[in-house]
């Protein structure tokens, strides 16, 4: 990492000054059990130099374990961790050059911000003066030059995590590991800081693994999102692709909002809301099987001249800016959510009869599940 000069104030959007490329990471067939729990169950993932990959998944799916294996804090039952093609099996954590930011506040309480940031350099035997200069620059980089002399207990949570980020970056890590670094912060700081992390990461081109269970955070920050489930990967894709073309029902429902609408398979696809649509992804191809069709709110449309299928009444409207999310009660007590351009539904009254149809060419199906009407991904 080239250092960015002594600017008075951090400018997160400045152009990229460094041409340093990050390291490549290859995880192959990682397995790790804790007693009966398979925390990692054959996880494989390639990360390109300079890429930011988000590990996303429900609680307990093995995200932290994967990160700790990469950092060298956890041993493997099987599998390999390679950084720039080099197997790290025998390399202890302190020799791995991985900057880590922890979920809990991890600054050394006995040191002020500068000493915290300079710690890694000190461990590498840099001279006191060089350490201080570099630490000062990094604090500047995260916009905390003024707080340099403060101790952790004198800083806010957001400030502490920024110092922790500066501390991790100070050693010019080959890989930056972030384990839910924002989860202890309030919503506004969280939003701000994640944008700062992203622009900093892009500027420094540090290969980064960002663990989160917040799908919105993952989608907004990552080059690629890796959805995990039960110790293995469900899907790895760019955020837009993951959202638009989830490979499995699990991913579909975990990422974004998803409607489940009952349908029945036929030889040419699946019949749902009176139409025959092509099916994609895995799932049954036998005709006559009851399934749930998974459709995003924006892939549904409303018509004010309801035909015989997909008739319902408007039960709720939520204004979300450019679009409005309309909740429609279709027959049989099935509720669906439909996103429509706000101006088109401005005059739509609650209780008005509407028709719901699917505007997508093909759909993902999942096994039929008992009456649950629609599902929203956890958004905390």
């Amino acid at each position, binding site marked *: 990492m080239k250092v960015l000069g002594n600017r008075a104030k951090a400018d997160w959007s400045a152009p990229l000054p460094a041409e340093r490329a990050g390291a490549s990471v290859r995880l192959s067939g990682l397995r790790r059990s804790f007693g009966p729990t398979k925390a990692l169950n054959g996880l494989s993932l390639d990360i390109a130099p300079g890429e930011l990959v988000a590990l996303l998944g429900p609680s307990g799916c093995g995200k932290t374990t994967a990160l700790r294996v990469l950092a060298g804090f956890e041993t493997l039952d099987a599998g390999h961790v390679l950084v720039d093609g080099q197997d790290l099996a025998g390399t202890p954590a302190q020799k791995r050059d991985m900057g880590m930011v922890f979920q*809990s506040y*991890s600054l050394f309480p*006995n040191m002020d911000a500068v000493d915290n940031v300079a710690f890694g350099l000190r461990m590498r035997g840099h001279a006191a003066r060089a350490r201080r200069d570099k630490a000062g620059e990094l604090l500047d980089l995260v916009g905390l030059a003024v707080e340099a002399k403060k*101790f952790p207990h004198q800083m806010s949570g957001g400030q502490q995590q920024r110092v922790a980020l500066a501390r991790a970056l100070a050693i010019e890590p080959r890989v930056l590991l972030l384990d839910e670094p924002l989860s202890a912060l309030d919503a506004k700081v969280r939003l701000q800081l994640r944008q700062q992390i992203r622009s900093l990461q892009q500027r420094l081109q540090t290969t980064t693994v960002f663990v989160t269970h917040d799908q919105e955070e993952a989608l907004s920050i990552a080059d690629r999102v890796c959805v995990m489930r039960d110790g293995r990967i469900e899907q790895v894709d760019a955020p837009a692709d993951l959202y638009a073309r989830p490979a499995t029902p699990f991913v579909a429902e975990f990422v974004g909002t998803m409607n489940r609408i009952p349908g029945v398979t036929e030889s040419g696809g699946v019949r749902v809301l009176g139409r025959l649509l092509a099916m994609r992804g895995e799932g049954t191809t036998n005709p006559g099987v009851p399934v749930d069709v998974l459709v995003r709110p924006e892939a549904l449309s409303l018509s004010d001249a309801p035909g015989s299928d997909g008739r319902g009444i408007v039960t709720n409207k939520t204004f979300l800016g450019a679009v409005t999310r309309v909740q429609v009660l279709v027959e049989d007590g099935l509720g669906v959510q439909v996103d429509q351009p706000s101006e088109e539904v401005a005059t739509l009254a609650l209780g008005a009869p509407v028709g719901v149809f699917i505007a997508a060419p093909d759909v993902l199906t999942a096994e039929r599940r008992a009456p649950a009407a629609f599902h929203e991904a956890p958004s905390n």
Partner: protein
Amino acid sequence: MVALVAEPLDELEVPAEEEGTGKHRRIRWWRGIVLFAVGAYFIIPFYAALRFSLEGSNGKFTLSAFTSIPSQPGFGAAFALSVRLAVITTVITMVLMVPTAVYVHLRVPRLRRLFDGITVLPIVIPPVVLIVGVLQVAPTVLKGTPDLLALVYVVLAMPFVYRSLDAGLRAIDLKTLVEASRSLGGRWSSTLLRVVLPNLRAALLSATILTVALVLGEFTMASLDQYQTFPVWIVNFEQDDAHVSTAVSLLALVGTWLLLLLITSFDRRQSRRWLRKESR
């Protein structure tokens, strides 16, 4: 001791004063009684001893019991031996217990309860048994030398030291701090030295105080082994001159108090330095 008793009362004070109700007044009232009782318990014997030591053989006031202390036969050697034992014991105990406590917390937290139990054993096991046990494992070079006592004291100090360290370790997020240090390239030794120990300062301090106090005041083991440590000397010398013996005891008490004050004020000054940095 006094400081330990006063502390819980200080804690009571905070919520009580915020409330400002009748409950508050009652607590204050009780506090007065307790303080008075505790004070009397400490001050009356102290006062009696002081008067006794200031009485000459003819019943008149004299300082001779105090001024003659350094020239008393055996005093210098006994005092030196006790200080020496205190230093050796503290060093051995810390070197043994700090890494052990850190290791248990970090690697086998499941065994914390077991360790709690094991470290209490020296309190419940009779002294004679302990001595025999130590004699069994002590290296032969030490047998017959007073330094052997240090090994016994290490065992005796273990419950107090382990408990102090345990409390200190529970108060910090040890695992995260250690992992943070290691991910930054800190070897185990530098992690222990620069990250763990500085954040255990208070625990180390109280462990040291307890160890030193224990060694300087321990009588049973030393007299069983027939070594002339400071407390043993005081008791033996009582037969020669009870006035001087009492004067020495008093000085030892005051000395310990001063030591405690010094250490606590040192600790305070450190925290104040942090605060001053904050205002800058």
